[in-house]
């Protein structure tokens, strides 16, 4: 029996003559956190909004919990929870009213525990426009998950949040996942996507250019490992000799940074060179390529970092 809760095949979305999304296909398994990554205008929001039943696709098929969002959006309401990119709440509504209001339309008891968990109880009688950007996003998130939906769509959920709120939100997402909720996460934040997502799809110019687990995606690139070295006398700064397996190198502050295809020979050669120059090694860091590195590589911006 299939475990897929979302199925998209050859999805296409156009706005007039502009093709926003073309031939996009992917599946999401139940209980998965699926990251949808891409630069601005890549088609993430168009894809999400068609899945949510807010827009009509121009081609292909979409199924969410075995429902067609374009034709059965009314049945989808209690199955999905959505945190829109824009706030989407009346200015004068308070968190207390919003919780009662939306829970009543979903026919569930208000989840004041979520307001407490997200630190909104002290602000429960404050009008929406008086809340900070972070508090607004936390409220919208609380409302999106209050009716225990099977699938939650989060569009840039941590934009504008402080560190503590981000951590709380990440914990909540993991908790929801533990309860079997599927989460579709559209984000620009690669560290967040790498940390939370079971699988990700990278959208570029309306097409999926890569899909898989964060590990698979990072491993599928050029695979350059970043080696950052700092010495006491800076013997590496003016070194013109190439170390083995190094493809690129640059300076950043007092660090010499090397991008290596094979860290063993590179690190050995660097240490040998430092000893030969009678210099002293102060710091040496080896970092595997991150999802962000791979994303930049895919989107043609490698080296900009």
């Amino acid at each position, binding site marked *: 029996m299939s475990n897929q809760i979302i199925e998209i095949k050859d999805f296409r979305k156009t706005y007039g003559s502009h093709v926003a999304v073309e031939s996009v296909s992917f599946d999401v398994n139940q209980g998965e956190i699926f990251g949808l990554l891409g630069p601005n205008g890549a088609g993430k929001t168009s894809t999400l909004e068609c899945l949510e039943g807010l*827009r009509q696709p121009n081609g292909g098929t979409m199924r969410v919990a075995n429902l067609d969002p374009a034709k059965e959006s009314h049945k989808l309401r209690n199955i999905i929870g959505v945190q829109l990119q824009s706030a989407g709440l009346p200015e004068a509504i308070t968190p207390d009213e919003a919780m009662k209001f939306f829970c009543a339309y979903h026919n569930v008891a208000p989840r004041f525990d979520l307001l407490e968990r997200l630190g909104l109880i002290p602000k429960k009688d404050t009008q929406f426009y008086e809340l900070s950007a972070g508090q607004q996003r936390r409220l919208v998130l609380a409302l999106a998950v209050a009716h225990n939906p099977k699938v939650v769509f989060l569009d840039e959920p941590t934009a504008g949040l402080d560190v503590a709120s981000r951590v709380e939100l990440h914990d909540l997402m993991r908790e929801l996942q533990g309860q079997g909720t599927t989460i579709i996460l559209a984000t620009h934040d690669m560290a967040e996507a790498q940390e939370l997502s079971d699988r990700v799809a990278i959208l570029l110019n309306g097409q999926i250019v890569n899909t898989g687990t964060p590990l698979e995606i990072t491993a599928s690139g050029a695979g350059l490992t970043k080696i950052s070295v700092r010495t006491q006398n800076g013997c590496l700064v003016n070194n013109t000799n190439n170390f083995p397996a190094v493809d690129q190198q640059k300076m950043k502050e007092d660090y010499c940074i090397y991008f290596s295809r094979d860290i063993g020979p590179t690190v050995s050669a660097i240490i040998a060179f430092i000893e030969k120059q009678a210099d002293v090694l102060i710091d040496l860091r080896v970092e595997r390529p991150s999802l962000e590195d791979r994303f930049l590589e895919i989107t043609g911006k490698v080296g900009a970092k």
Partner: protein
Amino acid sequence: MNSFLHHFAFEFRTGIRNKQMLLMNYLFPLGFYLLMGFIMPAINPPFREAIIPALGVFAILAATLLGIPDPLVNARENGIFRSYKINGVPSISILAIPTLTTMLHSIIVMLIIVVSAPLLFKAPLPVNWLAFVLIFVTFYLACAGLSVLIGVVSASSRMTVLWSQLIFVPSMLLGGLMLPYSMLPGVAGKFAQLLPATHAMNAYNGLAMLKAADFSPWGSVIVLAATALLAFALAGFLFSWDSRNTTRRGNPLLAVLVLLPAIIGIFLF
């Protein structure tokens, strides 16, 4: 029912909490009522007899035409309707609840006027209370229907101001509130019959205050009721969750059909 009550309670509180809506629902109508009540009878003594109907009509015009359309446009353009759609709020609630909550605000204002006008300005009370209530309700629904329709078809807040003022300003000048309908020249009188305020004043005079009506008062009630029904039907038909990304069921120009009952009324009544 629970969802309807929560939605109604929130919208009602917004009508008081939101400064712009508080102004249109209470401060502007009651301020104007006190101003006119103190000034107009001294200048124009017969106005005393029209204080309750005229300023009741003014209160409804302000609360509906100036209070309802703009929040509807802002809610649609700021993605609030999208959020409502996702959470299962039906479009009928989006249109009906502001209508009902504003009606409650207008009833409160009308009660204040009815109770205070005889004491403050020696204004006569309606003779036929049943007719008074019937005219209040039909006129309110006609104005609320027009306001909701303006909110549904206007592309921006600026357009709501334009459309609302196109009804509000002529209603003040020609609707029989400040100047009796009988004093208007022929063409202006015919034009005035396109305005719900003219029909409301005519029906109040003929049926509630038991004074001479300028044309059929029951005809006016029928025009108001037909305008209300047509306006809400058109608003429901032309409603859009998201003006940028969804297609309307019909051209917004269809909204001008709402004038049909008043146009037919000119020839029939």
